[in-house]
């Protein structure tokens, strides 16, 4: 069985994450808004989201895992 996540969701989420993070960093005075900063982080976010979505590296929590983690009394 090959593992795969959700690349489209990852790409869109990464773009949104990068875009808003750019504004957060601007507000926190980490950097000034510029064309470069506005493009860089959304693209990095898109790439990370796409990569995570294509590879699906985060393991799915299986039922047996959940049961194993539930304390048995």
């Amino acid at each position, binding site marked *: *069985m*090959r*593992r*795969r*996540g*959700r*690349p489209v*969701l*990852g790409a*869109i*989420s*990464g*773009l*949104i*994450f*990068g*875009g*808003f*993070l*750019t*504004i*957060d960093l*601007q*507000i*926190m*005075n980490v950097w*000034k*808004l*510029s*064309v470069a*900063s*506005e493009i860089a982080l959304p693209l990095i*976010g898109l790439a*990370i*989201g796409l990569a*995570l*979505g294509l*590879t*699906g*590296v*985060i*393991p*799915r929590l299986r039922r047996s895992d959940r049961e194993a983690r539930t304390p048995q009394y």
Partner: protein
Amino acid sequence: MGGGSLLAMAGPAAATFTTNTTNCAGSATIVGTGSDAGKTVSVNANDAKVTMLREGDVHWEGSVPTAIHGNQGDIVIHLGLVSVTAKTWGPSKNASNKVSKSGVAKIPSALKLVPPGTYHMTGYNSSDEGTCSGSMDLRFTGSIVSSPVGIVAVIGTILGAIGIVFAGIAKALP
């Protein structure tokens, strides 16, 4: 000289000059009102950065050694991909050959909504005799959640991060 062009002197003059072939000079004192009452900020021609107030009156003055004519220019605040023109003026002839002017301008009420952070501002005044242009950084203080834009940005960042993590969770494919 038109009021706009002299306001321009106060603008670019209160900055790091990039071009100043007309030897323009200027300064401004911002006296806070409303939520910024009691605060005063002084800006002069050598400043590259100013911590701005959000409410107040700007007492500006600008001058040139000899009268310049046919003045026109603008002041633009750069917000990344978006640039906002704060003021344009001219062309004005300055038939009376004035070399200085001063005045009081109110800080635009829209600045109350600007999120904290540092913004780049540029301005110039061109005339028949030469050009005076400069830039400076405007810094607005406050916490990240002190403006609606900041709150939306924080929520958007969190939602985006959740989306990335969710997208990275493996699906079982045949």
